[in-house]
């Protein structure tokens, strides 16, 4: 198997208004690698938007001077996006709720981690200098 190669590497300020363009770059990458159309139009854009907004709003807490980085890695069987923030550790398992229960469905928040897990083939949390959320989309 070939070594995974970096296909995209973007660092932006902690401001949610940059998200849409970064996601559009990633979606283009997804289309050019000929992943299924649905994964490029829905799964990736929504999951990556969630990871980016959590990194900006939760991880970096919108701090001036802190950055968020997205790196795409392409391998033979998958497209992997790492979203890096500069924030404190958190427990991705504990934070994830089920927003579909009758109690939760009326809540205005708490659907981000859930959607990432539903829309991606794999979601991992790696603790490094900050948090790394690794989103994996299989080519299949």
């Amino acid at each position: 198997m070939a070594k995974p190669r970096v296909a995209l590497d973007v660092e932006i300020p902690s401001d949610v208004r940059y998200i849409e363009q970064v996601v559009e770059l990633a979606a283009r990458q997804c289309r050019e690698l000929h992943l299924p159309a649905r994964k490029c139009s829905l799964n990736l854009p929504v999951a990556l938007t969630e990871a980016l907004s959590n990194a900006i709003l939760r991880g970096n807490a919108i701090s001036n001077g802190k950055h968020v980085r997205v790196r795409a890695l392409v391998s033979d069987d998958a497209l992997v996006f790492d979203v890096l923030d500069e924030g404190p550790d958190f427990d991705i398992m504990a934070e994830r709720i089920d927003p579909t229960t009758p109690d939760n469905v009326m809540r205005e928040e708490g659907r981000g981690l859930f959607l990432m897990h539903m829309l991606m083939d794999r979601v991992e949390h790696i603790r490094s200098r900050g948090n790394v959320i690794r989103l994996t989309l299989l080519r299949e």
Partner: protein
Amino acid sequence: MSFSISKQGDVVVVDVEGQLIVGNRQELKQKVLDELERGEKKFLIDFSQTGYIDSSGLGVLVSLSKKIREQGGELRLANLNDDLQTLFELTKLDTLFQISDTRERALESF
């Protein structure tokens, strides 16, 4: 990425053009709340020109539906494409909203 508001009979129709996401959801919220404050009661959000919606966009829809109901009004949605339909099903929000296939059907349903 923009929201255009028009009036069809006594229904306020909002077209969401582009994405409804964390970067612009406040704008949609404010526009609808302004109309609600003006006394409008019937709202239709049309997604025929929408790309994708993130969790904070879905959150704004939930919030608006509550606020509109509190004022004795109603919020309906129309024209969810397959991608958006999937999102509403995954989150079970399809059980919370009244969703129509077309704008016409949504307008008739009020």
